[in-house]
């Protein structure tokens, strides 16, 4: 584990993600590229995980289509601040749909970890919770402690709104944990877990 000199949040991302998924065992998960994909995979591979390895900015929008298609399931996006910043407009689209089964968890270290820890806009003034609120998501919250998992999981499992949790994590890099990069395989096994045929 390599620590950055800049202290951002206090939360250990790997521990947080593992506990969050354990608390939301039924959730359909879409991950943003880079470290969030590694975190979710490191927590234990699941058929109901859709790992993005590219398509930066697309995780929340993809989850929107999925959540509308699967209204009885809870859809959970686990992404990073940089990825969500690229897809800010998707928050407006999610707010417009007023769906009840979509949660976005932003693992916010204020930096682009994958590319050398350059500062992102969240450490330069952007508050994603404020953005989510302004986009009329049903709830949004800052999470600075591990205990925030309970509140997030409650929303995910209740399927009672759309929301965003901005989780302040330590700006540090972990060893990469690499999920499958074969998109067709990931797609087909995800669909199979929903009882859907491969194409």
């Amino acid at each position, binding site marked *: 584990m390599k620590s950055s000199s800049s202290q951002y949040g206090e939360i250990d991302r790997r521990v947080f993600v593992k506990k969050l998924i354990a608390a939301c065992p039924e959730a359909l998960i879409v991950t943003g590229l880079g470290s969030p994909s590694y975190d979710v995979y490191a927590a234990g591979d699941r058929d109901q995980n859709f790992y993005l390895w590219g398509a930066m900015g697309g995780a929340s929008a*993809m989850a*929107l289509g999925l959540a509308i298609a699967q209204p009885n399931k809870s859809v959970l996006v686990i992404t990073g601040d940089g990825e969500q910043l690229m897809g800010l407009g998707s928050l407006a689209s999610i707010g417009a749909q007023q769906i009840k089964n979509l949660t976005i968890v932003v693992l916010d270290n204020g930096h682009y970890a994958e590319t050398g820890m350059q500062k992102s806009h969240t450490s330069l003034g952007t508050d994603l919770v404020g953005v989510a609120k302004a986009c009329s998501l049903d709830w949004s919250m800052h999470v600075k402690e591990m205990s925030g998992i309970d509140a997030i999981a409650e929303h995910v499992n209740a399927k009672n709104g759309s929301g965003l949790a901005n989780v302040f994590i330590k700006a540090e890099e972990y060893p990469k944990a690499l999920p499958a990069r074969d998109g067709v395989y990931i797609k087909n096994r995800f669909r199979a877990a929903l009882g859907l045929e491969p194409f």
Partner: protein
Amino acid sequence: MDSKEQSLIHPWKDEIFQIFKAGGVSQVAYVPDAGHAQVINQVWADKDMAAIPVTTEEDGVASVCGAWLGGQRAVLLMQSSGVGNCVNMFSIINNCRFPFLTIVTMRGEWAEFNQWQTPMGRATEEAFQMMGINVLRADRPETVGEVVSAGFDAAFEGGDAVAILLSQSLIGRKKWGVK
């Protein structure tokens, strides 16, 4: 043709909506265009379809793929200027082999008053092809239904990625109120 206004009701637009309806489309993502307005209104009025306005076309690419991931058919409506916004997001389609259908109203190719539309209009077909998406085009009102139906089946029966371009001549000149 020259006197045609963009806001006119066209029977071929009904045909597009009917193809969606008969084909079981559940979600229609869009960035609006005058040429799509009639279909967008019909989608909003249909209780079995979700109309999904997106703020940029690339979000529509991701959302229609998410719909298929969850077992629903979804279509993306946009104009040619939006195709350039989508290019990297098309990677999802390629990597995951999602069935994909988009219908694109063309700008910058027929009596275009606003030449800012022209560079992307000129590059639209090639941009799709560079990203591995098949392109079909409808130039005449009487062929729209047939072309859209062929693209629809190629996408949702055959699993292909298809873009259908609707020529600007179909939609008519945009009225600018200037001489």
